[in-house]
């Protein structure tokens, strides 16, 4: 080796390998690309067919809603926000894990994010697409949705910028757009890899156009990495702002149970919590059916479970603060809301189910034996997502009882509320199945960075350091 001093590494010492041993640049590319260029697996056809059938439920539900009007749902005064807003918040929260993985973990040098970021970002986009359906459908006249946007019009009207609902329009549309850009930018070099490995003219043409002619020149990579890092830096505050603004939809109103300063951080933590549960739910089948255990290792599952545990504790703390502040405010409306409506009210059993799902079940994740048990982790993740759905439902049901008993009421979802919710799973899963079939589900070029031979052995004037020895970079 040269006599040059080893540079101290900014990164902590070698973590356990995030790629199974024995992989080369070639084998990583082949493994990911071959999923797309090989014959359609039977399981995929069955899975997509089922998802597509569920999607038809959504088509029927939305068509009926548009034909008949919003009265087909159970929403009415005083509960004007029902399943639609519950599901809107639930879906958009799920999306947040994708951005956390792609942006925040990148900034923190968490290299293990590499193999899960692509499909987690896809999950973000599809979840936000599902989420976006609900406010549009809830408008009653969705063909006027563009009225939400500021544009010069003959009515000489402009939006009301003091309303959190208008902030939502900006937040959610920006979130979707930036997530899409981030995702597409990440895909460009992989499209080039797809183009270069195509054996037929048609895929070569399609992926060639999608790759916009990417060649991988060093200046291009330099600008690319700069852009990627800046997008991560932009997405990080963005993702926090999105769920903060979603929580403002509630917190800015002065309804007991909604008007709380804990809402923004507690919503953001809950979003990441449910999002990681969904990532685990998606990663488990991908590992199995596509044989990706080399890339999505047990360590990945363990890390995700730990993040779920940490954010779950924050969420549980949020429930505690809500209850404590209701008591400590000495405000009779807050106290009544908490005790007589929420905990022991008409949907009190939902509250206790929520505490069970989000408070107690995640505590199992303290144990390594449970974190490394895939089946249990999968089930816990489902329970967590049920819990997070219940949380939003419980919060929404604060609407049932406000200050005046004469204006109390009760909400009951109709068949169409439920079918719309079920239908969005069809949309989500259909899009995910298509994604797995035609796009590289793991970032190819970033995976190569995890291989030891990707490091340059610097300025060696003596003999070359052999690739693979990398103790420093």
């Amino acid at each position, binding site marked *: 080796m040269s006599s040059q001093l080893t540079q101290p590494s900014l990164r902590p010492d070698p973590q356990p390998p995030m790629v199974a041993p024995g992989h080369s640049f070639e084998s990583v590319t082949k493994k990911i690309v071959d999923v797309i260029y090989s014959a359609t697996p039977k399981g995929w056809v069955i899975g997509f067919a089922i998802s597509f059938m569920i999607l038809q439920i959504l088509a029927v539900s939305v068509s009926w809603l548009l034909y008949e009007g919003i009265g087909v749902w159970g929403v009415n005064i005083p509960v004007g926000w029902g399943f639609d807003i519950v599901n809107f918040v639930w879906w958009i929260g799920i999306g947040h894990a994708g951005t956390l993985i792609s942006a925040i973990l990148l900034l923190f040098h968490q290299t293990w994010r590499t193999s899960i970021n692509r499909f987690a970002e896809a999950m973000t986009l599809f979840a936000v697409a599902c989420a976006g359906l609900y406010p549009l459908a809830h408008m009653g006249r969705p063909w006027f949705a563009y009225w939400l946007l500021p544009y010069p019009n003959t009515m000489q009207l402009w939006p009301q910028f003091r309303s959190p609902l208008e902030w939502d329009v900006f937040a959610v549309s920006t979130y979707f757009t930036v997530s899409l850009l981030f995702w597409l930018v990440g895909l460009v070099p992989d499209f080039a890899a797809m183009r270069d490995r195509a054996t037929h003219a048609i895929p070569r043409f399609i992926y060639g156009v999608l790759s916009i*002619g990417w060649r991988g020149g060093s200046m291009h990579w330099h600008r690319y990495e*700069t852009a990627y890092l800046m997008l991560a830096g932009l997405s990080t505050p963005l993702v926090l702002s999105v769920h903060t603004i979603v929580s403002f939809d509630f917190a800015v109103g002065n309804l007991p149970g909604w008007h709380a300063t804990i809402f923004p951080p507690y919503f953001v933590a809950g979003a990441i919590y449910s999002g990681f549960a969904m990532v685990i739910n998606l990663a488990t089948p991908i590992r199995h059916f596509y044989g990706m255990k080399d890339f999505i290792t047990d360590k990945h599952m363990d890390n995700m479970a730990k993040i779920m545990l940490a954010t779950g504790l924050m969420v549980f703390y949020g429930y505690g603060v809500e209850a404590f502040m209701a008591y400590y405010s000495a405000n009779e409306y807050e106290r009544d809301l908490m005790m007589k409506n929420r905990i022991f009210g008409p949907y009190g059993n939902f509250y206790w189910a929520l505490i069970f799902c989000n408070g107690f079940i995640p505590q199992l994740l303290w144990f390594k034996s449970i974190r490394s048990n895939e089946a249990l982790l999968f089930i816990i993740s489902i329970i967590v997502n049920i819990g997070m759905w219940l949380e939003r439902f419980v919060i929404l049901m604060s609407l049932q009882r406000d200050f005046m008993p004469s204006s109390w009421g009760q909400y009951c979802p109709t068949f169409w509320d439920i079918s719309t919710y079920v239908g969005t799973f069809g949309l989500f899963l259909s899009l995910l199945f298509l994604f797995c079939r035609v796009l590289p589900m793991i970032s190819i070029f970033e995976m190569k960075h995890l291989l030891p031979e990707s490091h340059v052995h610097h300025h060696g004037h003596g003999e070359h350091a052999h690739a693979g020895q990398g103790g420093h970079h």
Partner: protein
Amino acid sequence: MEAPKPKLYGLVAQFNTPTEIVEAAQKARDAGYKKMEAYSPFPVEDLHEAVGFKRTKLPILVFFGGMVGFLTAFSLETFTSGGAPSFMDPFIPDWFKYPMNIGGRPLNSWIAFIPPEFELTVLFSAFTTVFGMLLLNGYPRLYHPLFNVPGFSRASTDKFFLCIESTDDKFDLQGTKQFLEGLNPEELSEVPA
């Protein structure tokens, strides 16, 4: 009769590891070549410096993109809500004014205007980042002479390429070929223009 020689884009040498490509690029620069580019399947650290590229101006562009986003949202909200100071009145067209009294809040509720300002700052910055990066890199460009090199398709899989372009002042077919051969490439090919 000899066919006219095809014009050359340059000479391209193929290497096997990141370390080799960085060293090759450094040697080429030391030898006085300027118009060259190294190609790799993933970003190789310091490779852009080895071929003589300092740093991109993209962050500066993004800063201005973000500023434009902020000012767009700021003026949109302030002007349409009637929150602009009165001396600006003659400059704001009537169709751009829609003052509303929302619960007695001031027309210039600048605190409530922050969320859309933040979002548009991020949105415009992100657009500048992505399209700035693509345009500075000269994309979209579906055709490139290098794609005619048979082995170049592996630039996206596992091989590393150094291309010295024929427009370089120091380029001469024989001399440059000899120089590149001295770097022990796996392969060396001419790139037809």
